[in-house]
C-alpha cells in the first residue's frame, strides 16, 4: 500500500503506548494494529482527526506516501 501510517514515531515522541492511543481515539487495539501494519484499506477523517488530536500533530506527521516500485523479474 503506497500510503504508510507512521503512528509509532509520534507515539514514541509523545511517550504514549498503542493501547492508550486506541482508548483515547475510541478504536480497538486490533484496529489500531491494522492501521499501523498497513493492512487498512481506508481511514475515516473522524479517526484521523482523533489521532491528530490525541498525538497533537498534523496529518502529514503520520501519513507518508511511498511510490510503489515496479518489480518485474524475468
Amino acid at each position, binding site marked *: 500500500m503506497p500510503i504508510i501510517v507512521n503512528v509509532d514515531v509520534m507515539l514514541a515522541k509523545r511517550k504514549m503506548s498503542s493501547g492508550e492511543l486506541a482508548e483515547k481515539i475510541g*478504536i480497538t487495539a486490533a484496529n*489500531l494494529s491494522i492501521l499501523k501494519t498497513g493492512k487498512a*484499506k481506508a481511514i475515516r477523517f473522524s479517526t484521523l482527526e482523533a489521532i491528530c488530536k490525541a498525538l497533537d500533530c498534523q496529518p502529514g506527521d503520520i501519513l507518508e506516501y511511498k511510490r510503489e516500485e515496479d518489480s518485474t523479474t524475468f
Partner: protein
Amino acid sequence: MKNKKTLRALVAVTTIVTLLSLFHVISLTIQSLYISGAMGTEFSPGWNEKILWGQIIIFSGRIVSGYTFYLLLTLFMFNSVRGYKKGIIFPKTNVKFLYGCSISHFFYSFFNLNIDIIGATNEHLLKLDTESVVLTLLFAIFALMYHIAEKISEENNLTI
C-alpha cells in the same frame, strides 16, 4: 451490528429451508428407490441396454446433484446465521456455496427433466428448458452480487 429481530427472522427462515430441503432429499431418495426397482413392485424399472449408460448417468446425476443442491442451500443458511451471530453479514464461504448451488441446480433441473429416459425403449432425445437456464443464471447473478457485497463488507471492515 446485531439485531435480535433480524436474527430471529434468519433462524426462522433457516429452519423452514432446512425442513423443506430435508423433505426434498427424502422424497428424492424414495423416488430413486422406486425408479431403480429397489423399492415397490408396481413400477418396474425400464433399463434399456441400448441407452443404459445415458440412463445411469441421468439417474445417478439426478441424485448427486439433488443432494448437493439441497445440502449447499442448507449450509448457506446455517453459515448465514452463524456469521450474523459473529457480526459478519456476508460470510466468505457463502460465496462458494452460492456458486455451487447455481451449478448443482442446473444439473439437477436437467437430469430431473430427462428422468423419463428410465423406461425409454428407443433412443431418447435429451430436453433442456429455458426455466432451468434462467433460474441457473439468476442463481449465478445472485452469487456474483453476494461476492461483490462480501468484498465491499471486507473493505468496510478494514476502514478504520
